[in-house]
């Protein structure tokens, strides 16, 4: 019994931090109707700055903490002013998601450059000796955590409910245009909420710092748990955020204590999926849901990227010559070949993502989950049960389709935000299962001894053979998708993306098309995962983990979504550049974050889209006849 209470307290303490993060999510969501996935990174930045002040500059703990919070606030002000607030003005909700993924990646990459990849910790605020209360041992830092969480929650509630700023915040959430007309500086309020949330996050990170170790990429985990807490509690509600955080903290601690620490995350995510499917608006729904509905109606304005038949044919011919002849001839034996094959395999998965996001308009933050399912299913069947690789791959695709259908049955009813979190949770669930089921998957150290891919006795055992395998699959998949996209299938998908209501009014079965896109996307992800395993003869959770989902998102956006071939540019840039210029490898994460931000803000149609727009720009002056006709009208 005592140990149960002790675990409960541990959960409570953890929950306080999740709650603080969730409050930040709710605050920004209320004011700007956007989800800021960079939230967790501010936590870690705050803690890292504090650590530097303590360890390297030898400053007292209190001063270090203050500097940590202020430094993070300053950084958030700069990022808010240059990235977040400008983005709010011109991007639809789903693109804001991706923009904040860019901020998260940039911050993590920046932290990697500044602080390196080693783990840090902080000095306890008031000693290490546990305080005994009624026979329970509570670390003093725990009291700090509870105290700080309670103070911030109270102060925020006061700010929102009782002050002019709070009223302005709520006005911005309800109707930004009207708020602007009433003389409220909406952009200033948005910036303020962004900075305030970052400062709250940094405070949380600094308070939890002494009880844990953290490194440059721990922020991603904090983002996820904070976001999940906010969604469980009902996003937009500060009270719900705290309650959601506590629920999640206690659930993960109980799971870790009574089941296995390896499954703690999996159970937390299963909890989230359950809450999402049964009560999508969370335990405490807030008035902000109405706003989300309004936003959903705003049309997306997207460039039309069409190369035209003739130019498309020329491009395809050049591509075919390059892929089948020039590349294997010139690079066949170089070290670059491996990177090119990886590019090709990732491109298969990103193609699926493009169909789903670029055409059907469904955000998927868990594509790597399908890669993991495909990769592990195929590898395990081949390694342990000696099935032929082709059968293993097909079995992986089958299992992925089953998972996709199950997820789609629930998740595609959810819109925008909730679909994104459901897919994110799915990816993490698969991720933690592939670590947790170590008897089957080899756990964190990975699965070894996977043979090469082979069909009917022909073994793809050299890089060149693998190259032709991947290139061949890509050509078939691309040809099929291009044909489908040019016809009624693609038109229906685009219509569903652009305006589901108007699409339904034309008799297009909206749900069926979304599910079809989701299944094709999952199958391609799965295929890519299997090929990954067969090519490397090795598969570890890192290769197909949740961060890979976000990387593929960046590749898609940078290449140009909704164009099928475009994402190849993005995959190539992010895979080949770090290989070609080894010194760049350290800057890879920061660079991809920066690229993601720049492209979302300034070149939303990506490298390929921009190129096509330039190629097809209107060069011919209007024919005189047309001009006369116009003026006559």
């Amino acid at each position, binding site marked *: 019994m005592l140990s149960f209470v002790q675990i409960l307290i541990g959960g409570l303490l953890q929950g306080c931090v999740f709650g603080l993060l969730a409050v930040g999510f709710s605050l920004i969501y209320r004011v700007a109707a956007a989800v800021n996935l960079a939230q967790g990174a501010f936590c870690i930045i705050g803690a890292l700055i504090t650590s530097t002040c303590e360890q390297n500059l030898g400053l007292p703990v209190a001063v270090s903490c203050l500097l940590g919070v202020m430094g993070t606030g300053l950084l958030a002000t700069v990022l808010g002013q240059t990235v977040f607030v400008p983005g709010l003005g011109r991007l639809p909700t789903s693109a804001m998601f991706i923009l904040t993924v860019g901020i998260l990646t940039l911050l993590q990459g920046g932290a990697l450059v500044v602080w390196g990849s080693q783990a840090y910790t902080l000095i306890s605020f008031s000693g290490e000796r546990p305080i005994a209360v009624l026979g329970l041992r509570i670390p003093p830092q725990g009291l700090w955590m509870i105290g700080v969480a309670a103070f911030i929650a109270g102060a925020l509630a006061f700010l929102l409910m009782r002050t002019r700023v709070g009223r302005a915040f709520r006005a911005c959430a309800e109707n930004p245009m009207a708020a602007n007309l009433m003389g409220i500086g909406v952009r200033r309020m948005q910036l303020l909420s962004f900075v305030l949330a970052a400062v709250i996050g940094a405070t949380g990170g600094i308070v939890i710092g002494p009880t844990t170790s953290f490194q440059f990429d721990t922020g991603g985990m904090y983002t996820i748990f904070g976001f999940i807490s906010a969604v469980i509690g009902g996003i937009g509600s500060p009270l719900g955020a705290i309650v959601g955080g506590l629920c999640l903290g206690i659930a993960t601690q109980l799971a870790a204590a009574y089941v296995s620490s390896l499954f703690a995350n999996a159970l937390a995510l299963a909890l989230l999926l359950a809450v999402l499917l049964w009560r999508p608006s969370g335990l405490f729904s807030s008035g902000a849901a109405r706003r989300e509905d309004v936003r959903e109606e705003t049309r997306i304005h*997207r460039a039309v990227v069409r190369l035209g038949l003739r130019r498309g044919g020329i491009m395809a011919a050049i591509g075919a010559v390059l892929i089948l002849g020039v590349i294997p001839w010139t690079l066949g034996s170089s070290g670059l070949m491996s990177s090119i094959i990886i590019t090709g395999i990732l491109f298969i998965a990103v193609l699926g993502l493009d169909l789903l996001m670029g055409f059907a308009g469904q955000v998927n933050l868990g594509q790597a989950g399908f890669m993991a399912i495909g990769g592990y299913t195929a590898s395990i069947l081949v390694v342990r049960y000696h099935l032929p690789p082709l059968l293993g791959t097909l079995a992986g695709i089958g299992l992925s389709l089953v998972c996709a259908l199950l997820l789609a049955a629930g998740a595609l009813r959810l819109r925008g935000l909730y679909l994104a979190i459901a897919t994110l949770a799915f990816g993490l669930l698969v991720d933690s299962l592939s670590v947790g089921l170590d008897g089957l998957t080899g756990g964190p150290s990975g699965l070894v001894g996977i043979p090469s891919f082979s069909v009917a006795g022909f073994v793809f055992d050299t890089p060149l053979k693998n190259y032709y395998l991947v290139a061949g699959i890509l050509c078939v998949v691309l040809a099929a998708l291009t044909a489908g996209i040019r016809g009624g299938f693609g038109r229906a998908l685009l219509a569903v993306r652009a305006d589901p209501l108007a699409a339904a009014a034309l008799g297009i079965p909206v749900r069926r098309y979304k599910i079809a896109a989701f299944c094709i996307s999952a199958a391609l992800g799965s295929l890519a995962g299997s090929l990954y395993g067969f090519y490397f003869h090795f598969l570890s959770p890192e290769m197909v983990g949740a961060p890979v989902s976000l990387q593929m998102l960046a590749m898609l956006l940078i290449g140009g979504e909704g164009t099928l071939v475009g994402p190849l540019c993005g995959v190539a840039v992010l895979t080949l550049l770090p290989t070609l210029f080894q010194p760049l490898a350290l800057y890879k994460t920061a660079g991809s974050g920066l690229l993601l931000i720049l492209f979302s803000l300034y070149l939303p149609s990506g490298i390929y889209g921009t190129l096509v727009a330039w190629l097809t720009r209107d060069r011919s002056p209007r024919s005189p006849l047309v001009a006369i006709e116009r003026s006559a009208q």
Partner: protein
Amino acid sequence: MTPALQVRNMSKTFGGVQAIADVSFAVAPGTVTALIGPNGAGKTTLFNLITNLQPATGGTVELFGQPIGALTAEAIAGLGLIRAFQTARVFPGMTVVENVAVGAHRLMQTPGWRQMLATPGARREERAIRERAELLLDIAGLFDMRNRAATELPMGAQKLLEVIRALMAAPKLLLLDEPAAGLNDTETAELSAMLSAIRDRGITLLVVEHNMSLVMGLADQIVVLDAGRTVAIGPPAEIRRNRAVIEAYVGREDA
């Protein structure tokens, strides 16, 4: 003869507000029925109830004798009831010709996987749809714009585009919500000619419209709504003389 559309005792409440109260009327096949009434009379709401974009509180709708109240918006469109929206809802991110071609979706025979394999049947069908879309664009005078983004078109052209898109779906009953709003006099005259041409090809029309000269010239039957109730139903000549209508609608507009 079975009416193309039979609306019986339709009603809708939003909270305590009675938006539509016990509205009944029938539309004969091959005719034009105009739905008129002052702003806020419930015309667009009635359209949404008929196409099931909003659930009705009470009442039934029959399309050519078949009850459609329980069907989804997609299934209703599948039966040949197609609507255009009040503010044109062209699909952004698609070209003009794609916007028209997508209208033919409910008529397509080849499933998606056969399109992906580019089977001869799928290609033949695709070519036929393109040709029909381009023909309609030519008739509407939008052919030169066919490869532009649809959202680049001026508002009037977008409304026209939406009507053509609806025609691509081979409607049996076409619902138009204020097709003349925002059009100038020449464009309105062209629209009027186009609508009567559509009617002459056997397509039944139900039109919400404010432009009285268009309505009086085109409609075979007029249904007048005010505050969610039917004030009068009858041919234009009769409506013009109806005292209740003049009080509810014309009088107010003149004031």
